[in-house]
């Protein structure tokens, strides 16, 4: 009972936070099902339902759900008495209307608590129901949510098609979003689909006892990759643009992966190499007065990569002796130095200063200009494929093993005869090459480079995405990039709240899966080895071991 109450309070605090920050109201502006359910209302229901599910037993579920609503109801009561929005700007009249459904505070409190109880009960029921029901309900509701929230994107993608697809689209969607009939249709379709899929999988599992896991994973990865490759051609230029940004970050992630994941060199100045690649390409190809030469893109790109490697080595030289977190600060400093230089008036005669360098032409193959996002996406894809191949080969080479020895313990590695200087410099240089390539494509994609594009935030983003994806693993980089770069781009309409979600995602991900979404096998063994030894020791409350 107490547990249910605590769970409820925790979720309730979350609801109050969402309300106070203004996310709830912003989500309320978004229909999932037009004229029936908004994203904000769905979020509240989800919170209460989640509390109920965690409480397990039905009765407790209802209680947990009701208690989830209590803090919010209290806030409601206070808001109706005292105007709080002079201090907390999000607690406005609109929020009050949303919470009370326009019916006044007393009714609002009742609705919240009653609704919370019902949702909590529902959550608990769902939790305790049979797999059959769960397999139907979860995919169904998730499909409705996706179809409703991303309706603009989906409608954009389906705009191009007339005929049966167009009719289906018109049936399911209105101009505002998902219609009620559309929601029901999608729910039913998704539920059926998931039941069938579940059935098929169970049949296959019964037949292939002890199947080949790796092959399964490879096949699934292959299918996902194929979808990714074909998607922009099918879905239009906006998706192509987003995927291209994802692709650039994948390139950078692979580079940083070499430095951080393999060689253990915590580099927070990675954006500097990106900037070098971009500015080199700009200076070598631009049509404006700043250009040093007028080379075609295909010549400028390898030169930019080479320059990035040189800069990478130059970076690495001073900080060879610096280790661990000191290295993080030193590299961060180097990154910031590059940023300040490209923006400065001092370097402006060469680098364009605050105005940047404009009029960078797009790449051409003969008479064909790679102008559209889709074609540039394929360029990025090819570059990523090449880079992935190089990274994979490096990982399994002598150099890669030297890096891993370096990461585990520098002194021992040196004692084993590994030339630390060479290994570190190669790590910086090769990592920089990937970033330089990404920068080169970035410059030609935007047709201009501005110094404001090269902030510390980019280095942090790349680091975050390789850790969330799974450090040291290439599929992890791809996944991390999609989750941390692709999703915020798609959610741009929520404005700055996407950074709130970004931060929350980082925290939750690291707590639930610190090894990343798709960790390399080595990593997973390392991380959970510690768990195993602790578990083996008598199962008593382990003393928290000192950080290694």
């Amino acid at each position, binding site marked *: 009972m107490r547990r249910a109450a605590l769970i409820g309070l925790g979720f309730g605090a979350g609801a109050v936070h969402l309300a106070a920050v203004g996310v709830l109201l912003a989500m309320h502006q978004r229909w999932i099902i037009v004229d029936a359910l908004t994203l904000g209302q769905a979020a509240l229901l989800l919170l209460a339902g989640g509390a109920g599910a965690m409480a397990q037993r039905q009765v407790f579920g209802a209680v947990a759900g009701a208690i989830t609503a209590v803090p919010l109801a209290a806030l409601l009561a206070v808001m109706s008495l005292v105007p709080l929005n002079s201090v907390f700007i999000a607690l406005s009249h609109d929020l009050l209307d949303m919470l009370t459904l326009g019916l006044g505070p007393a009714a609002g409190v009742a609705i919240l608590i009653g609704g919370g109880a019902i949702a909590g009960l529902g959550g608990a029921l769902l939790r305790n129901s049979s797999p059959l029901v769960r397999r139907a309900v979860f995919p169904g509701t998730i499909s409705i949510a996706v179809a409703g929230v991303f309706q603009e994107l989906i409608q954009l993608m389906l*705009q191009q098609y007339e005929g049966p697809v167009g009719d289906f689209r018109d049936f399911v969607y209105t101009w505002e979003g998902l219609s009620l009939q559309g929601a029901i249709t999608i729910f039913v379709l998704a539920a059926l689909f998931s039941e069938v899929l579940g059935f098929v999988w169970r049949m296959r599992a019964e037949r292939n006892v002890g199947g080949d896991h790796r092959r399964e994973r490879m096949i699934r990865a292959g299918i996902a990759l194929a979808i990714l490759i074909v998607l922009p051609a099918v879905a239009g230029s*906006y998706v192509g643009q987003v995927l291209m940004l994802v692709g650039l970050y994948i390139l950078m992630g692979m580079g940083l992966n070499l430095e951080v994941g393999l060689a253990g060199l915590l580099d927070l100045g990675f954006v500097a190499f990106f900037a070098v690649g971009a500015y080199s390409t700009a200076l070598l190809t631009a049509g404006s007065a700043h250009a040093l030469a007028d080379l075609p893109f295909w010549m400028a790109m390898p030169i930019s990569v080479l320059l990035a490697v040189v800069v990478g080595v130059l970076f690495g030289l001073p900080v060879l002796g610096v280790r661990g977190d000191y290295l993080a600060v030193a590299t961060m400093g180097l990154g910031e130095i590059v940023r300040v230089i490209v923006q400065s008036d001092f370097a402006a005669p060469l680098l364009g200063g605050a105005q940047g360098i*404009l009029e960078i032409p797009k790449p051409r193959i003969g008479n064909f200009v790679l*102008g*559209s996002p889709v074609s540039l996406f394929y360029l990025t894809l090819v570059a990523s494929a090449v880079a992935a191949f190089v990274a994979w080969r490096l990982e399994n080479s002598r150099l890669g093993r030297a890096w891993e020895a370096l990461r585990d313990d520098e002194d021992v590695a040196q004692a084993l005869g590994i030339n630390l200087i060479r290994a570190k410099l190669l790590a910086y240089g090769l990592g920089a090459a990937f970033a330089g390539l990404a920068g080169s494509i970035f410059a030609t*994609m935007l047709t201009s480079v501005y*110094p*404001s594009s090269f902030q510390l935030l980019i280095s942090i983003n790349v680091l975050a995405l390789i850790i969330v994806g799974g450090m040291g693993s290439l599929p992890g980089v791809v996944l991390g990039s999609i989750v941390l770069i692709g999703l915020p781009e798609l959610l*741009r309409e929520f404005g700055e709240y996407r950074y709130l979600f970004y931060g929350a995602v980082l925290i939750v991900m690291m707590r639930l899966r610190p090894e990343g979404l798709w960790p390399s096998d080595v990593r997973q063994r390392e991380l959970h080895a510690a768990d195993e030894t602790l578990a083996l020791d008598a199962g008593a409350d382990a003393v928290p071991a000192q950080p290694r």
Partner: protein
Amino acid sequence: MGALLKWSAGVALLCASQAAMAATVGPVTDDLGVIRIAKGAPIQIGAYWVLSGADTALGLDEKRGVEIAFKDVGGKLLGHPLKLNAEDDGCNAEGGQTAATKLAANPQTVIVLGPACSSAATPGAPILWQQGIVDICTACTAPALTASTRKKEYDGFARTVFSDAEQGKADATYIHNVLKAPSVVTIHDGSPYAQQLQQVMADNFKQMGGKVLSQEAIAPTDVDMKPLLTRIASEKPDLIYFPVFTAAAAQIVRQARGTPGLEKTKLMGGGSLLSADFIEAAGPGVVGFIIGYPDLSPEAMGQNYPKFVDEYKKAYNEAPISGYHANAYDGAMLAIKAIEKVAKTDKDGALYIGKKALRDAVFAIKFDGISGPIACDQYGECSQFKPSVLEFTSSDPKTFGVGKNPKKIWP
């Protein structure tokens, strides 16, 4: 795998080449293509502004200006509802490109308003024009965008806001001829807008015979201006010109008061400081602070400007939060008038708009907007710039009102 890639490349080629093409749809023939809006479907007007980050007020203010314009025409045009698809471009180039790509990918986008930042317009406008979509900018002031040397890919770009080439010249004229200050120091914050504006001002000032003692720079997030101001004090300028944004400008105004040597130096800023927030942030030193800005007095502006401000206050519970709402309103009205002029309805109630015809209409229409008369020249400069200088009279943010505090002191 290779075959798959080749097939994909082929499809990509097909999609890539789907730029604006001549077409005849319904009763309209057009060189750049025709948009058909079904009966009852909304007329989708795209927009991209800075709607997040430190400059949110800039973009939000313009969005509101457009929303009021829509409201003033009743929310409908030719029997179709007006729908605003506003995207956030974050006031940078990647954001501008992504937002423009999204708007361009929607075949129902009739015309686009915005952005707020020139760095977003530079990649954004060509992307839109490639699909034949006109981009009416509401706050981007970079001279290059409507210069006679601009490239063909900007043919679809017009703006209802002045060019910094004129603003800088006007400021230099004021400082040299009216204030008769012999020497200035300029400060910019590393943004393309501020750097270019102060450069234009400095160049013009030098041409007129004034002396530019030095051109300094800060980062927009800098708070400690005292070392810089002490350094400037040692040069003994007569005026410091800093067209930077609210946070940094407020720091300069505050800290200049306490810097020995700068007590008599005049301070001048730019148009981004037209807000109550600035008065609050700058403190008591704001009294006597001047900014160069287009003439906003009723005699210079359209007479409807005060009415617009009242409508704004009623709808959003606060006075306009930045300086370009009137330009946004006029941009929206220009778009609406152009659509009205060229759209044709067929007997089923569907609407047809020719893209080239729309572009020509935008460049041809003349009317009196609330920010002044609107008439586009061949390079897309649609606003008639009338310079003025405003001075802040009180440090109480509640007294903020364009024309009151700050009030016009020149011409």
